[in-house]
């Protein structure tokens, strides 16, 4: 039996810059932190067959994604000396230029925060059952695939 319930990472729609600012601000009381590393995923207006991506519609197998994220979080905390980690991913529609992923790690020293952030981003892109449907300017769509 797992003691801890997986934290929800999903938010409806884009992640606002004011939300990111609030999240940073909350860490000012944690005076053992020396460095924060943040990754933000932004929806790109890619060209696909001459059409452009206007937005991405995100769906997820939420239960499985939250369990996977729980495992990733446990692994990262076991590997790096982190003070905290926060992860948010959009569901639903996110327009080109808007933020759909926010990964935020903090540590006493920069190296742990930076390495943990990068590894978390790589793992969640590879392991979380989340799908992006790229809605094109001509109202057709294209299923995105992570490299």
């Amino acid at each position: 039996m797992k003691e801890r319930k997986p934290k929800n990472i999903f938010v409806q729609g884009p992640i606002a810059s004011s939300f990111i600012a609030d999240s940073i601000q909350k860490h000012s009381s944690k005076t053992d932190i020396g460095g924060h590393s943040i990754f933000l995923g932004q929806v790109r207006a890619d060209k696909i067959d001459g059409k452009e991506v206007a937005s991405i519609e995100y769906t997820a197998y939420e239960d499985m994604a939250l369990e996977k994220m729980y495992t990733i979080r446990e692994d990262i905390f076991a590997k790096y000396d982190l003070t905290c980690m926060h992860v948010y991913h959009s569901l639903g529609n996110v327009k080109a230029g808007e933020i759909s992923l926010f990964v935020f790690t903090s540590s006493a020293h920069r190296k742990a925060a930076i390495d943990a952030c990068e590894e978390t981003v790589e793992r969640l892109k590879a392991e979380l059952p989340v799908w992006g449907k790229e809605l094109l300017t001509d109202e057709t769509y294209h299923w995105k695939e992570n490299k």
Partner: protein
Amino acid sequence: MSVKIILFGKLADIAGSSVSVDNVPDTNSLVDSLNKRYPELATTKYVIAVDKQVINENTVLNKKSMVALLPPFSGG
């Protein structure tokens, strides 16, 4: 025995977001049955999750199995 499976992304475009399949004791027979019903699935890339774990080999199913077909992930 009937198993209910859920489908995501491109797979849901092909077969809908949820499908019931009869007489499938394991995942191999499930795939065979689905490929007959939805030929396009046979040429589409996906992995199978049983009870929220991705499986890599034929897996026995029971009526409580949560089966999901997952196309390549594209979060982030």
